[in-house]
């Protein structure tokens, strides 16, 4: 459904941030993109949602297709109206607006029945938000704000949700809950999800396919199960190694252990 082919992203016509990335989000799937800080994950999402244009960035090579239509020259408004909804990194709620207004703002651009969507969010997904509906969103806790941004995205009833690090700054228990909700949304609302994460463990639990990004390149991709068992992923993203076994100093020195994909 969503397809990136050899996408290169440039900022200010000089800085190359994403170098020839190809990836695909087929219908009915959760796909994740893993990578460390500065790998280009967020940039890829911005390239898809069109927010790149406002930061003097553009797709300089390759193209992005959604439902067979090329979208990398369209504006964010047009892309959102086609059914792609980006949940921006860092829980950016409208702090001075009430919870309910925040939710309503998600549905401004789509032709949905606002009342129905609001009901769905309140009763089915986030009952906690209903009690907070009149509260200024800026005073919510981090977990509640996370619920709010996901709720806001739900209001738009998109076909594809781009989620940028939903786990950032959340306690482990909340991370777990958040990913459960993401899974639930995917299954019950039939919304495809492109998930960008540093928390590889959590992301690979819900995603069916993953891409690993480094320095703007896809260095590895595969089914979630195979990524979970990949030695390199374990070592560099899951922080696991042969646990309990004796380790030689050679193994601990990270630069000795070369990533095999390089």
């Amino acid at each position, binding site marked *: 459904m969503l397809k990136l082919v050899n996408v290169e992203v440039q900022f200010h016509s000089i800085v190359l941030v994403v170098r020839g990335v190809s990836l695909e989000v087929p219908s009915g799937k959760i796909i994740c993109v893993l990578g460390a800080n500065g790998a280009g994950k967020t940039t890829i999402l911005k390239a898809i*949602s069109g*927010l790149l244009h*406002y*930061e*003097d960035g553009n797709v300089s090579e390759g193209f992005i297709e959604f439902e067979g239509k090329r979208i990398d020259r369209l504006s*964010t*408004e047009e892309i*959102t*109206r086609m059914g792609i*909804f*980006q949940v*921006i990194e860092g829980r*950016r709620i*409208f*702090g*001075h*607006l009430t919870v309910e*207004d925040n939710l*309503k*703002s*998600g549905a*401004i*651009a*789509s032709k949905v029945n606002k009342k129905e969507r609001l009901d769905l969010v309140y009763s089915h997904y986030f009952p906690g938000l209903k009690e907070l509906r009149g509260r*200024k969103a*800026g*005073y919510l806790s*981090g977990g509640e704000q996370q619920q709010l941004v996901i709720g*806001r995205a739900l209001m*738009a009833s998109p076909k594809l949700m781009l989620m940028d690090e939903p786990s950032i700054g959340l306690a482990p228990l909340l991370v777990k809950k958040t990913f459960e909700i993401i899974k639930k949304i995917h299954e019950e609302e039939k919304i495809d999800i492109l998930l960008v994460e540093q928390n590889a463990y959590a992301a690979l639990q819900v995603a069916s396919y993953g891409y690993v990004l480094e320095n703007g390149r896809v260095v590895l991709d595969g089914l979630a199960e195979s990524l979970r068992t990949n030695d390199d992923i374990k070592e560099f993203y899951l922080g696991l190694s042969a646990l309990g076994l004796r380790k030689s100093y050679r193994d601990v020195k990270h630069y000795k252990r070369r990533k095999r994909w390089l």
Partner: protein
Amino acid sequence: MEQLLGLLVLGMATGFVYGLIAIGFVMIYKSSGILNLATGELTILGAYVFYGVASQLGFGIYWALVCVLVCALLLGVLIERVLLRPLAGQPILATIIMTLALGGLLRGIMALAWGNQTMYAPEILPGLRSATIAGFGISSIHLIFIIASLILVALLANFYRYTTLGLSMRAVSEDIIVARSLGIKTNNVLALVWGIAGVVSMVGGVLLTNVMGIHYTLVDLGFKSMAVVLVGGLESLPGVLIMGPAMGIIEVLGTRYINPLVGGEVEVVLPWVILMGVLFFRPYGLFGWERIERV
């Protein structure tokens, strides 16, 4: 005592003039996060256009009013499209300085076009001389000012609270990037905001022509209204309604009671002294939004 009450009514009446101009400030700020430093200039331009069409070109006040409305809407949209949109993505300060430059430009144009003489526009409502409130005469135009401000604030408040467009505007002013990501047509929203704000300011100017003679130096009223806005809080429409008259009353009282002691001009200083005081204790104004910061 009687005299004091009279002063209060007079102060309140002049205060609503500030209030009406201040609504222009709040409207732009609330919807786009920009402090429009050309608000006073727009107001006086409205007055001049009204005078020009009604008296100089002789079309009468109705056509003049229509003309002001159309000009205001066009000018507002034009300002956004030509001057401000290219600055999108730049620091907000660039935009604010742009409005300052625009103000200077408008002032110059007005001085060129209409010269240095004070001009008097025809009355909007001839025949209505003055009304009496609690035994004190108040000119009908002041009354219109008060009513216009109240109606305008009520309309705007409901607009912001209950309409989708109002919600879009609040969203745009809080976080334009998120607003874009929600699919809000931010450019259209901003153009409309400036259009409406232009109308509010320039129609305020038309009312102003009936209170005093028109002269381009009256743009200082805009400056004074800024004190009102900052004391009241940049996002607060009720703040404007309260602080406008309050500032008017303080000015009048200052003129009457403090001026004889110090030899005059206290009314020029007072708003700023008050502004300083308020900024110390509530930097976001008396009724403004407290900055919510969470880490």
